[in-house]
């Protein structure tokens, strides 16, 4: 074990002084930053399967994520069976159709539903935020896929007994895996909508043997991208309050 670990450590790079390192940073991104900044959610995949060892490497990136109290409150489930991936997708489509029938007041002739739907939206504000509300409609219409034809899906289940916020820890582990995958030239997409298939029915919990203390956290589509979806884009800045030297400034 020790030997493999040793063998994996790369040779030391040419020594640079800290000042030199800082000078270089002023003009170029690090390799890691480049992966972070170029990562886009990929929704177009090739059919070709991802080599098994690459998926295992991605799982390693998840395994070494930081977690509260080092409690590692996660269970990863790799699914490379189209029948399961498609089955979960069909279940989610069915549930989205039901949700739409009950909640979508935007359909002609359904404006009477608005106050009721709005009360429900306010109650479940994060699940029924305008973006997922639109997505429910798109998924029900099959205009938005769930896994987009990705040949590998990693499900992240959280151990509800985890320290502090197990869901957050699962998010950290998941993003580690996402960044590792993109650094290998793969594409990924976070797919939270699969929650419906695990929380609104027990079919898939039973099928994948998910029981207490595990609960659905999120899932990741992984595959070879079609086209070149990764790249830098523009995005909103967010004001950052900055306290230093006895005063507050706002950095945007």
């Amino acid at each position, binding site marked *: 074990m020790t030997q493999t670990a040793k063998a994996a450590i790369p040779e030391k790079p040419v020594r640079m002084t800290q000042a030199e390192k800082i000078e270089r*940073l002023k003009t170029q991104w690090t390799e890691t*930053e480049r992966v972070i900044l170029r990562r*886009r959610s990929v929704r177009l995949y090739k059919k070709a399967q991802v080599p098994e060892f690459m998926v295992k490497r991605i799982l390693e990136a998840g395994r070494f994520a930081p977690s509260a109290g080092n409690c590692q409150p996660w269970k990863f489930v790799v699914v490379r069976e189209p029948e399961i991936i498609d089955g979960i997708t069909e279940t989610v489509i069915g549930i989205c159709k039901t949700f739409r029938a009950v909640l979508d007041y935007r359909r002609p002739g359904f404006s009477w539903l608005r106050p009721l739907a709005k009360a429900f939206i306010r109650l479940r504000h994060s699940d029924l935020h305008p*973006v997922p509300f639109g997505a429910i409609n798109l998924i029900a219409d099959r205009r*938005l896929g769930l896994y987009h034809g990705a040949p590998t899906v990693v499900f992240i289940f959280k151990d509800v007994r985890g320290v502090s916020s197990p869901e957050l820890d699962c998010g950290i582990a998941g993003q580690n895996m996402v960044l590792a995958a993109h650094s290998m030239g793969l594409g990924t997409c976070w797919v939270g909508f699969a929650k419906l298939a695990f929380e609104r029915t027990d079919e898939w919990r039973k099928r994948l043997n998910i029981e207490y203390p595990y609960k659905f956290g999120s899932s990741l589509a992984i595959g070879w991208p079609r086209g070149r979806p990764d790249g830098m884009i523009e*995005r*909103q800045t967010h004001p950052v309050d900055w306290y230093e030297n006895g005063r507050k400034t706002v950095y*945007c």
Partner: protein
Amino acid sequence: MARFSVLEKILVPTYDDPNEMTPGQVAFDYEKCGGCSLCVQACPADTLLFEDKKPYLKPPGKNECMACADCVAICPEGAIRLTRGYRFTKYFKTIDHGELRGPRLCADE
């Protein structure tokens, strides 16, 4: 002054009212566009149309752009630009969202 009034904390916007929901917006440079349709296929909101081998943003009322810029990134010709982020009101009022900027090296001082 509080950022949210009591009503804003209680009421959710009407999802099909353009006064309460402003979707994102992208602009196409049709001189550069090669008509490959990758942007249309990549759009998670199904909000791009493909007609006469060119992409178009769906008209107001049908536009559900969430300004993810996946289309911008996938375009092999660099022909798409994000021109506006989304903006919601009332309970989902968009706050602390500034201008659209690319990644910055932040080394200019």
